[in-house]
């Protein structure tokens, strides 16, 4: 049951993120971008952390408790920080576009490709 709900939420978050990216508003597109990241991180932790009943500490392991998967958590931990880095890069792009072209409407800046 909970798997279904998780999958449903991840799918909805992903769809909403993509929808924001497709719209014209660059500020909301940046937020959509961040929502995409959240959906992906949620997915990975959900896949990795389900089985365990306890946090992955040595003391828990020694007490014979079933812990969650530490490896995927370590990967997501760094991924969160790195995705924040790329998110700030996106914000930087929005910022510079608004400064140079005085717009945050993606339809207005289609000339950038040349």
């Amino acid at each position, binding site marked *: 049951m909970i798997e279904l709900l998780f999958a449903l939420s991840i799918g909805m978050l992903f769809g909403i993120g993509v929808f924001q990216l497709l719209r*014209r508003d660059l500020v909301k597109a940046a937020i959509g971008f961040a929502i995409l990241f959240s959906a992906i991180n949620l997915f990975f932790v959900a896949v990795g*952390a389900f089985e365990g009943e306890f946090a992955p500490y040595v003391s828990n392991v020694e007490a014979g408790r079933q812990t969650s998967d530490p490896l995927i958590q370590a990967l*997501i931990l760094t991924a969160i920080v*790195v995705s924040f880095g790329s998110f700030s890069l996106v914000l930087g792009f929005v910022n510079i576009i608004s400064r140079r072209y005085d717009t945050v409407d993606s339809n207005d800046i289609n000339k950038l490709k040349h």
Partner: protein
Amino acid sequence: MELAVITGVPFFLALLLATPFARSTFGKSSQTLISTAVMAALFAGLFIALPRLQAEGVITQTLTWIPSLGISLSFYLDGLSLLFALIITGIGALIFFYAGFYFDDAREHNRFIIWLLAFAGAMLALVLSGNVLMMFIAWELTSITSFVLIGFKGATDAAAREGAFKALFVTGAGALALIIGLVMLSAVAGQILYPHEDIRFVGDFASILQAQTIYKHEWFTLIAILILIGGFTKSAQLPFHFWLPGAMSAPTPASAYLHSATMVKAGIYLFARLSPVMYKNELWISSLLTIGLLTMLVGAYFAVKQNDLKGLLAYSTVSKLGAIVAMIGLPQQSGLKAAFVAIIAHAFYKSALFLAAGAIDHATGTRAIDQLGGLRRKMPTMFWVTVVSALSMAGMPFLLGFVAKETLLDAMLHFDAPRPQFVMVMVVVVVSTVFTAMAAYMLIYDVFMKRPAQRLHFHQPASWIRLGPALLALGSLTLGFLLEPLIIPILELAVPKAFELHLFAGFNEVFFLSLAILLAGLILFLLRKPLIRRITFPFSGDEVYREFIAYLEWAGTTILHTQSGYVRYYLVIILGAVAGVLIFSGKLSDVIAGQQIIPSDLSVTITDLAKIFMLILTVTAAVFTVLVREHVKAAIAYGVIGYAIGVIFLIDHAPDVALVQLLVETMATVLIIIMLGRIRAGTRLKVINSLWTGRHGHNVGLLRDLGISIVIGVTVFLFSLISLQNRPQRHSIAEWHLTHAKEVNTDDVVGAIVADFRGTDTLLEIAVFTTAALGVLTLLARGRKRGGALTPVKAQVSALPEFDLDVVDEIQDATSLSTPFTRSVSFIVLPIAILIGMAQILYGGNGPGDGFTAGVTIGLAVSLWYVVLGYNEAKNLLPWFRPALIVRLGLVIAIVNALFPVSIGQGFMGHVEYDRALGIYEIVGSFGLHITSSLIFEIAIAIAVMGGLGIIIEAIAYPTDRSQDLAEAHDAERN
């Protein structure tokens, strides 16, 4: 002497001379002496290896590189490598000495020899490498350094840029073919040597040369063609020869070194290296022979048509390279001896001629043969150098070139082929050598002896410039008499069969043919005025190249038309392709068929209820970000998503991830809000108002975007459901981590993985993060003046009437947030944040929190200052907070900490217990601390992350000079 050291020394010296310290300490003359001495020492070091090589045949040395993939840095020294390495270092020493007097400007000289040293290292790596992959990397490095050296004067000289690009394009394209050929070759060698294993790549030359039956393999034709293309492009063989004359824009020392003595012979080296396993194939040797002979003829003919002195030398180099390739293509490897003698002789006379040409160019300012003349009295040394070297090129008895031509003619006369073929080959060889003799006479007479057309400008170059060319000419003059002690011992190692080599083999047919050629060359020389420029070729490789480049540009423009620039367009194509592959391969239906979408078990536990609540909150907030009009509310809704997911992590027993998630999402939300303050409200209002209406008043676009998002959302939903229901059993490595974490003195297994087990990964992640931060800085720092005023200028906006700035921007003024209360909060929060951060680092091993969270915590407190106080005041009050320095500090600590264990015999990023080593384990242990390399790494992570955040915050909070931005935009529009 270690081969790895020999290869590494030039690179090291190049790096050393590139440091500001070396540039300011060593003048031009000391740099010249250092580089010359180093090359001479390398030459001596290689020469010393000769007796050992005579005893052992081959010296191999291996440094482990990526053992799990079977890739190693292996070095291989046999007679062939030794021959080339001696030329590279020996000629190199003279070139480096010469370069010291060729350049007048010390900075130019420094820049030149740095690149020339890098080239020398790459070239040595090429001939000393024992592995096809390493050889290929060196091969490409020589192309790249050659590109830089040809384009050395590219800043002012368009021809230099074009020549450099042409050379890189042709040799780079050839290298693409070569790498495919080499990989296939090593796969085939693996099949032959290990027939019972599936796929095994054997890249070591030592092993490849054992696989004698390669030439019978079904792939061999393709392998041969690919390797031939690689070698032909590098060694300027027809029809790829045209890049070499174009490369003459390089400074002359580089032309003499790269484009005559060493790099252009890399293709020849490769052919000779692989010859033992390839020569039994008919295609291989006939291609070498045919292309080589054609190149020899065409190069020799074009040489005498040149008016540019270096152009003449370049084409005659092309011709000689063709001759050498043709000799490697003689059946049964019978031409190898002649090829190697030619390589040695050519290195001596052609480098000398190039260096003399450089001195002439330096002295007179021109290289046009019809303007030069009468230099015999002004430059007597260069005259005699040219006489000896040109005659050696022509094959005058009893110079070194004579030996080369004798062995060439001898090898060709013994070419065992059907009569018509033999006659054709001999005609080509004789005609080419006649042209070469003619070019030699032209060099001597037209440059030095004939009366110049008009008075030449002349200034005598420094006298030491003569040393290099003079020594080379001396070599051409005397080495013919010193074959026995000097040349033959090296050749004996390189040539597979027993051979004889004499300066004078008696009055036989070869000798008389040789004399006849010299005489015929003289006759042609006397008749040159009416003869030259009569025959023209219908097309040249250069024109084909130009056509090709024009076609490429056209193709590029055409492809650009397919780019719409809309995100939806790309998303549809990407997803459509993925969906197409899934559907048509039948994978999708296979996977869905076995799934139960609606679970049978609908029971939920209490913790599940909490999770469900958080999931609902997340999705609701996400929908809210779409529907809400105000950007600030959308940003806060985004913060809610981040927090809710953080709570889910917490419930799912991932406390470390939860902590990072909460902190980072706070930071992200703050960042969005700061950024919103930097965009005019009017600008944002415009886009908000048009959000739900299409451009033409209808909503087709909205429906289309909704459709795309729903398709993607459903796909991701199905994918995650299947993944979650079939999630794999925990990987064994995770179990290993759980049981071994206590060996690195941590309780928190996630922290142990981040800082220790997968530390290299983390090191790269913080590098990526700081690079992203630098990206933000570069984006937003445009137009910022160094040391300029920090206050925004509010003027000249009226000059740009189409931008209406009347709309008041209420968040623009950050100081409106600055109330006494917020100020005191921000003052109190920062020290507390620093304390919390330190606690998280020091005690991160026992609970949630680590370097990442510490860095973000402190970064958050600092960003609060920027939000509350504004950029200027925050910058003034926090003088110690210099993000760029902090980032560097963090990365340096991380790298030093990672490298230190290597020096004490542990691996990269090995775990070191400093507290035990210092004997304070008990003392710090009583505070619950362990001072280990992991702890230092956590500190480094915290510092780097804090610095990266600081860079981002500073860049985004920097007061903008909007009028300047708009003016820039206007300029961009106009261009």
